[in-house]
């Protein structure tokens, strides 16, 4: 088969145990892994196929057999909008199952310009090393002198050592001290800027003695219809800017738009938009990954107080939410500092603050004592103390550091039934980003139940629901001088979704209001549609910060993605075909987790009792959330059995029949 345009053309496998590097052309890669590129596209799709073949049984995630897979797609590094992304894949050290995470800035593009669509790292080096990819030349270099360094210094040292000819030429994807010390939720970070968060990739790199992957790429990517691509991208971007009502807010608030402005988070008290205004942190500049016109990075500088002078390129919602919810501080300076600190240490801010918050609960209930905390009194709200604990955790220092470094699920297991009962929102061993699943709108939390990488909400971040929490449904539209209903009507019309799907989700005729937000109607269907959509653009690979319903109300839909992808590759994929790619990937991941971990309906559950009790605030105040009802509806819409497994018919429909020889399905 001739290689479609848009791919870089090579795959590299690097075996650290045997010090072996292999580079082979994409055709061989596709043949070896049974990949028809049009059915899997790249990124998330390639990762699922690679793990399916390479690791057919459960492994020790920290053992040498685990893999670090970095996969780009045909979209990456082209002139298409938001072309800076790639996916990292591995077996999760938190869950033992499938894991992946999206990251951007400029490493993914440089990797493709160096000629690689996919990099697979296996084995374990004897001593610390980093992998240097200088276009087609790959070397494994000693990293003993860099081991133990935090992120910023690592990037600086490696760039100097490799010899940058101009700043930003060499791109460094590195792990930090948390990864080296095998904190279970360590993240890797690209150029100290963009991390495949929640993937555990930093831990797996640490377990391999792999400090960093470094790339210099000066090549080019062939495009099927270059002028057509430019026109399509130009039109798409213009349409986006004209139609997306949240864009103005987005430039001010980045990914916190949905929380600080849209959802008026927190549900009571001063809205974060106001809070932020008060903090008066100047945004010196907006910055973005390759070809992005909706920049989420804010170059922030803290002006006054004890963090005066601290600068951070970021300003993302996860940090804001976890500071507020888990460590009990509503101060934007602290939020910015936490973002910088966790990036430097390489720890996942969600998993860490959830573990911290859980430890405080346990401490207050007397289930752990000062004997377990090296004499420290655990408490929320004291940021200096929390920074100290974060450092202890990243370095696995003392009893407390080691306790927190294993994460909430291991803590619960270790401390017995009383501790287990109060475990914060966790699914399949991975915590979400805040304690109580009932606090926010339904789809967001539901996403944690079905996410293939465990209890993480990110694949179903649904702004349609978050925007109109009944308590504050006019908070957000007022910033763009619209009423809630006007905005909804406009977005319903513009949303790139077939009419029959709109009817299934929003009713017939489609209508969105507070009743829709409160109710169950259409929520399972919306979840199915969004999951397929997310898996699809994670395969392209492009960014969720431009995607319809995820962080944007209108954004890009499948039609735009199909149009641009066809210009890049020369294919003629349709809306439906593209959505099928997403569904195919989701089904393979589901089956993969079943195959190696046995995960089915019994694992699509929140740990502990909290999620199954009445809510205290928000939509579910004094009410139970019918998780099982919506879950069964979701299975049915997916064409899965009541046990939550794909049926033979479904697999056949998705051209996945061959998997049936490799995995035994019950029923």
């Amino acid at each position, binding site marked *: 088969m001739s290689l479609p345009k848009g791919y870089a053309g090579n795959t590299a496998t690097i075996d650290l145990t045997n010090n072996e590097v292999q580079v082979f052309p994409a055709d061989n890669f596709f043949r070896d892994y049974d990949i028809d590129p049009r059915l899997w596209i790249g990124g998330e799709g390639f990762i699922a196929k690679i793990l399916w073949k390479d690791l057919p049984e459960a492994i020790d995630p920290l053992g040498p057999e685990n893999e670090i897979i970095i996969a780009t797609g045909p979209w990456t590094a082209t*002139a298409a909008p938001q072309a800076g992304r790639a996916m990292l894949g591995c077996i999760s050290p938190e869950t033992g199952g499938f894991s992946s995470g999206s990251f951007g800035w400029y490493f993914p593009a440089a990797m493709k310009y160096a000629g690689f669509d996919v990099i697979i790292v296996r084995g374990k080096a004897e001593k610390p090393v980093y992998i240097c990819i200088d276009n087609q030349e790959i070397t494994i270099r000693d990293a003993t002198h860099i081991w133990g360094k935090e992120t910023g210094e690592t990037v600086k040292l490696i760039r100097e050592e490799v010899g940058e000819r101009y700043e*930003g030429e060499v791109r460094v994807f590195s792990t930090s001290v948390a990864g080296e010390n095998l904190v279970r939720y360590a993240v890797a970070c690209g150029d*100290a*800027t963009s991390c495949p968060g929640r993937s555990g990739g930093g831990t797996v790199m640490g377990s391999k003695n792999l400090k960093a992957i470094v790339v210099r790429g*000066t090549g080019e990517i062939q495009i099927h219809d270059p002028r057509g691509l*430019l026109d399509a991208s130009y039109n798409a971007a213009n349409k986006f800017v004209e139609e997306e009502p949240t864009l103005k807010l987005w430039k001010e608030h980045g990914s916190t738009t949905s929380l600080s402005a849209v959802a008026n988070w927190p549900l009571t008290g001063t809205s974060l938009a106001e809070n932020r205004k008060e903090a008066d942190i100047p945004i*010196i500049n907006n910055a973005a990954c390759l070809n992005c016109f909706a920049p989420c990075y804010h170059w922030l500088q803290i002006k006054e107080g004890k963090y005066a002078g601290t*600068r951070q*390129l970021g300003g993302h919602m996860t940090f804001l939410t976890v500071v507020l919810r888990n460590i009990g501080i509503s101060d934007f300076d602290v939020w910015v500092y936490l973002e910088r600190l966790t990036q430097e240490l390489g720890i996942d801010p969600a998993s860490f603050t959830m573990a911290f918050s859980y430890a405080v609960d346990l401490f207050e209930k007397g289930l752990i004592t000062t004997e377990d905390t090296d004499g420290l009194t655990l408490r929320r709200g004291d940021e200096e103390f929390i920074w100290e604990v974060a450092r202890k955790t990243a370095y696995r220092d003392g009893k407390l550091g080691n306790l927190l470094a294993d994460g909430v699920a291991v803590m619960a297991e270790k401390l017995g039934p009383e501790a287990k009962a109060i475990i914060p929102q966790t699914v399949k061993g991975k915590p979400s980003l805040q304690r109580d699943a009932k606090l926010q709108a339904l789809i967001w939390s539901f996403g944690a139940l079905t996410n293939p990488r465990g209890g993480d909400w990110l694949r179903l971040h649904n702004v349609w629901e978050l925007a109109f929490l009944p308590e504050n449904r006019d908070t957000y539209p007022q910033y763009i001088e619209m009423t809630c209903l006007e905005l909804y009507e406009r977005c319903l019309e513009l949303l790139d979704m077939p009419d029959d799907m709109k009817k299934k989700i929003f009713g017939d005729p489609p209508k969105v209001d507070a009743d829709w937000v409160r109710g169950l109607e259409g929520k399972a269907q919306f979840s199915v549609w969004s999951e397929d959509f997310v898996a699809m653009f994670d395969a392209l690979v492009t960014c969720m910060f431009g995607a319809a319903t995820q962080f944007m109300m209108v954004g890009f839909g499948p039609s735009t993605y199909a149009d641009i992808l066809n210009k890049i590759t020369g294919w003629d994929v349709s809306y439906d075909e593209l959505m099928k790619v997403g569904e195919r990937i989701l089904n393979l991941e589901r089956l993969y987790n079943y195959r190696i971990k046995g995960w089915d309906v019994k694992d699509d559950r929140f740990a502990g009792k909290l999620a199954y009790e009445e809510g205290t605030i928000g939509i579910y105040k004094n009410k139970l959330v019918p998780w099982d009802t919506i879950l069964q509806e979701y299975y049915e819409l997916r064409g899965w059995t009541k046990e939550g497994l794909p049926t033979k018919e479904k697999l056949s429909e998705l051209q996945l029949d061959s998997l049936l020889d490799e995995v035994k399905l019950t029923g």
Partner: protein
Amino acid sequence: MTTCTTYNTGATSLSKARLHIARHEGHAITGIDEEDDLIFQALTCQQCDKPYCMYVCPTGAINRNNETGALTINYDRCIGCRMCMAGCPFGAMRYDPDRRQVFKCELCEGDPQCVKFCPTDALQFLPKNIANIPKIDYLARRLIELREREVKENNVGDDKNVTT
């Protein structure tokens, strides 16, 4: 930059773009307590009035397009000696090792695509006699702002505060 290469070569690349963006990603290479900056600055061929690249070319391969004002390369005449690279004071003449030829910004037939596609209007294409106006106008307005703030915060230059 991706637009530049896609438009001009049919393939996408950053290193072969005809404009260069100098970057300084201060946060990426500093420790948590160090102050640093984030800088992006674009530069490309100035289409000089006295073009050294054209003067040093031994085969007359570089000519001015009178319609667009751009200095363009005639690849039928170019012998690949790279004297133009030596002659250009700005490093705007570049070399593509794959195509084995020099290349420079030729203003995309008078409609620079980088400008057209720039989502934030950070790049603009203006006649050279007024190209400085937005810059100086912005700075003049900034001066007014700063002066007003100074008056407000410190009463500096406020007539009521002047003692005689």
